[in-house]
């Protein structure tokens, strides 16, 4: 464990968009293998900008990012994108192929895997998210919660080192939220979860990182961070009414 490189290593990452808006001002983050970490922060904190650096969609600023020891740079992009599986917020953006099965196969086929291997991975990934047997269905026939879980399968089929989820609980009904949590808890991968849903962070992630103003302002056990009312107030984070993180 100690010899394995961290799943994610972000060092002094700064980035400004071409229009001059600076989103990140020197972010440091280390996520160990198998950890589940929540990335918290108000809107505009730079969370999405950070996520898009993890697989090299955005780059060109200061600092370094590496995934399981592999630096994120142009010549490594195919392997980096295999290692970092991003599940975007709107499953309709992620699921663009005519059927669920073809969508889950999209990543493995881009990796150039042979067809029998692709088929095996599609079956395994759908099984992992509790959607076995849905391969032939068109995505628009699925419920929102099912589409969200299929979106997770579309990156699981690439056997990622780290799963990055953007607001995984948004728009889910309570049952869909619980089903997704069960799926995520059972996955043997590193997870970085971007969310405003603090109870969900507490349920799934032992550790949380708070990003605000383009820097990491807090990093520690989720329960302790959520119990720090001053910290939450300073960074526009709020617990749902009546929720007490020390009593869960």
């Amino acid at each position, binding site marked *: 464990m100690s010899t394995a490189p961290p799943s994610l290593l972000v060092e002094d990452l700064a980035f400004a968009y071409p229009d001059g808006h600076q989103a990140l001002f020197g972010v440091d983050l280390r996520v160990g293998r198998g950890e589940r970490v929540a990335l918290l922060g108000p809107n505009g904190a730079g969370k999405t900008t950070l996520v898009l650096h993890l697989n090299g969609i955005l780059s060109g600023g200061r600092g370094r990012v590496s995934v399981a020891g592999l630096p994120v740079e142009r010549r490594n992009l195919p392997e980096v994108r295999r290692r970092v599986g991003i599940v*975007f917020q709107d499953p309709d953006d992620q699921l*663009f192929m005519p059927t669920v099965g073809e969508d889950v196969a999209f990543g493995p086929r881009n990796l150039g895997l042979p*067809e029998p291997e692709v088929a095996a991975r599609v079956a395994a990934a759908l099984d992992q998210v509790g959607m076995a047997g849905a391969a032939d269905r068109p995505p*628009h026939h699925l419920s929102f919660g099912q589409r969200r879980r299929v979106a997770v399968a579309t990156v699981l089929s690439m056997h990622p080192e780290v799963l990055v989820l953007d607001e995984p609980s948004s728009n889910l009904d309570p049952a869909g939220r619980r089903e997704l949590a069960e799926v995520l808890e059972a996955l043997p991968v590193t997870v970085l979860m971007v969310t405003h849903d603090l109870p969900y962070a507490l349920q799934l992630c032992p550790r949380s990182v708070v990003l605000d103003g383009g820097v990491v302002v807090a990093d520690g056990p989720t329960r302790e961070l959520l119990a720090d009312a001053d910290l939450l107030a300073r960074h526009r984070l709020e617990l749902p009414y009546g929720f007490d993180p020390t009593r869960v």
Partner: protein
Amino acid sequence: MGAGHGGPLGAAYVAGTSAVHRLEPHTKLVAVLAFALVVVATPVHAPWAPAAYAGYAVLVLAAAAVARVPAGRLARGLLVEVPFVVFALLLPLVARGPRVEVLGLSLSESGLTAAGGLLAKATLSVLAATVLAATTEPRELVRGLQRLRLPAVLVQILAFMVRYADVVTGELRRMRVARESRGFRGRGPGALRVVATSAGALFVRSYERGERVHLAMLSRGSTGRLVTGPAAAVPLQAWLTALALPLGAGAVLAAGMLLG
């Protein structure tokens, strides 16, 4: 959210498990195209042309019967033909040559034949296309076109259209509900401005969605080429079943040319 099964593009499809439904989409596409070519190749002015049209009609209606496509569905399919009908009705009035008296109107003989031929050919081709649309889901049609080596860019555009037609019409519907919930009624010239704004907003939203989809594709290692799985080989038997329609039509045409 609550998108009905089928959606705006799926409305043409009549679910079923008939022999026609089960055929591979590209064999059906080839069959319909070949049938239309035979129909169009029939000489309009030949004395045996009406008999040939009747033969084709029997064939295409038999295909519809095997596929269990309801008559109402066929009739609705014919609606796309309306502009041609208008044109065809004008032909006997404007064409030159020997004329005949019909109900007090002086009509051109060759115009009548041309109009009749035009109507018959359009109707037969549209019927065949309707049977195709009623027995093949839109995404299967795209797959068929892909197998027929339609350029990849066109295949991708069609595939994305099929995938996102529901999503975009869903957004359009929600925008309309939101407008009307605030008392908007689509009447008068003032309404046009509001509807135009909605259309613009929908365009921007769809454009942004396109960007997000592209991002999601890149994140899964896309290189811009859409790799798809292997296609199952089609047995000769299935090809023969699919091509029964154009082959039958070809036989009718050949018989007309030889005997007529």
